[in-house]
């Protein structure tokens, strides 16, 4: 087994450690970034989060989150020290699992206060044109870059096997993200169909679309960098890893300022529904398995707003969802398998 230089190990460990701390910070603030009628993925009466029960639940959640996050960090540092840098990716996984436990316990405390969300649904009848300015040109950019890279390898005849594997896995991954981008334009069920809430929602959706496109370009450029920079310049090739952290940080700050569905852009307004019931995200709580997985066979929407988090989730009752998941997961799986079988040269 080959050992990486110390500097590389430090950079990778610091980046992963940073992701762990960032993850904890997001989970700390998340309950206040969701829609006002949703609290720990449960539909609640308006004003509940600011009431005594809501504040008490939030306080306990944050204490537990801090405890499990510190434990996760200790396990991460101990793992890195004892087992080496290969233990690194386990850090964010441990943190996420620990954070989920804190979330799930808080959700159980909110459930007795749950109320039925409004059953009123609205939709615009006049079909509207969805235009993606520069869309397909911009979206095809990463594929063009991959094609150019493949051409470079073909002309120079260097590392064809590695190039083909990288290009194939990258293409599949990018196709998955592009499908997701298309889904944001066509498969999202809006929570509001009109008024200022809808305008804010669209602004949020546009921002998420820009983030996905940015991620596509980032992944492509990083992969091309790793392919084209000679292996012995490992430190240089790692230059883009800390950038991932900066990219994630910028995205989180931008989305947090908008709030889920753009709900923080202006003070919450009274819903247009006549029933007076909270709007939430217009889905019943029972369709949210464990509070995070949306499974509703009667809903044709494939992409829905997350209840606890910023961005969108998928309706796991739709077959298309599983196709998207396969496209998104196949690339990392192939990369891991290739690495395990020593097919690819050892690189960090």
């Amino acid at each position, binding site marked *: 087994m080959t050992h990486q230089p110390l500097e590389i190990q430090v950079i990778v460990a610091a980046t992963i450690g940073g992701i762990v701390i960032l993850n904890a910070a997001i989970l700390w603030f998340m309950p206040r970034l969701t829609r006002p009628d949703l609290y720990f993925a449960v539909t609640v009466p308006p004003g509940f989060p600011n009431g005594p029960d809501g504040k008490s639940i939030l306080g306990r959640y944050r204490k537990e989150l801090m405890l499990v996050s510190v434990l996760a960090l200790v396990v991460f540092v101990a793992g890195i020290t004892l087992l080496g840098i290969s233990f690194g990716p386990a850090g964010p996984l441990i943190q996420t699992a620990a954070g989920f436990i804190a979330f799930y316990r808080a959700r159980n405390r909110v459930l007795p206060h749950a109320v039925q969300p409004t059953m*009123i649904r609205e939709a*615009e009848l006049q079909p*509207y044109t*969805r235009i993606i300015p520069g869309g397909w040109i911009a979206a095809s950019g990463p594929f063009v870059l991959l094609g150019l890279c493949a051409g470079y390898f073909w002309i120079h005849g260097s590392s064809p096997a590695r190039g083909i594997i990288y290009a194939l896995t990258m293409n599949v991954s990018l196709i998955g993200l592009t499908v997701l981008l298309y889904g944001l334009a066509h498969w999202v069920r809006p929570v509001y169909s009109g008024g200022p809430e809808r305008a804010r929602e669209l602004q949020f959706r546009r921002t998420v*679309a820009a983030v996905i496109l940015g991620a596509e370009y980032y992944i492509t450029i990083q992969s091309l960098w790793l392919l084209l920079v000679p292996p012995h310049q490992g430190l240089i090739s790692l230059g883009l890893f800390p950038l991932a952290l900066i990219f994630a940080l910028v995205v989180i700050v931008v989305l947090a300022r908008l709030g889920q569905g753009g709900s923080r852009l202006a003070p919450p307004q009274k819903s247009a529904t006549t029933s007076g019931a909270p709007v939430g995200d217009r889905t019943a709580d029972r369709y949210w398995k464990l509070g995070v997985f949306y499974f509703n066979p009667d809903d044709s929407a494939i992409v829905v707003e997350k209840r606890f988090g910023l961005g969108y989730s998928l309706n796991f009752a739709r077959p298309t969802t599983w196709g998207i998941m396969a496209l998104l997961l196949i690339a990392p799986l192939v990369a891991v398998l290739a690495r395990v079988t020593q097919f690819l040269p050892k690189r960090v």
Partner: protein
Amino acid sequence: MYKLLFACASPVMLRIDLASRVPVYEQIANGLRAELVSGKFNPGEKLPTVRTLAINLGVHHNTVAEAYRQLANEGWLELKRHRGAIIRERDHPEAGPDTMERFTRPLRELVAKGLADGLSPSSLAREMIETARGLEERTSP
């Protein structure tokens, strides 16, 4: 900058209540028919596709498809695969002998429900007159 632009025309809304005892497909058909009768759409215009409307309402696409089929059978819509529903020029049908009876019975039931829920007879009468007048104005050439 990657942007999604949703260029909207003047919004005509369809509203349904999933808690209602009226089947959802019927609510959709009734809502669409009301808009078609009021003249907010011209022949040749398109309605959203079944999938789009189902996604926006958060219901199964078969539910919307059933409502569209019902309206197509009544002559309001022309359904084309992958092209959505196109509004048709519809001849005014002759009212049959039992048409008025089929209309007045649910109307009486609705009025009784309104009265039972506390609405005054005068407010109900005013609402019905205004509705009828509005429809008459919109549909008159």
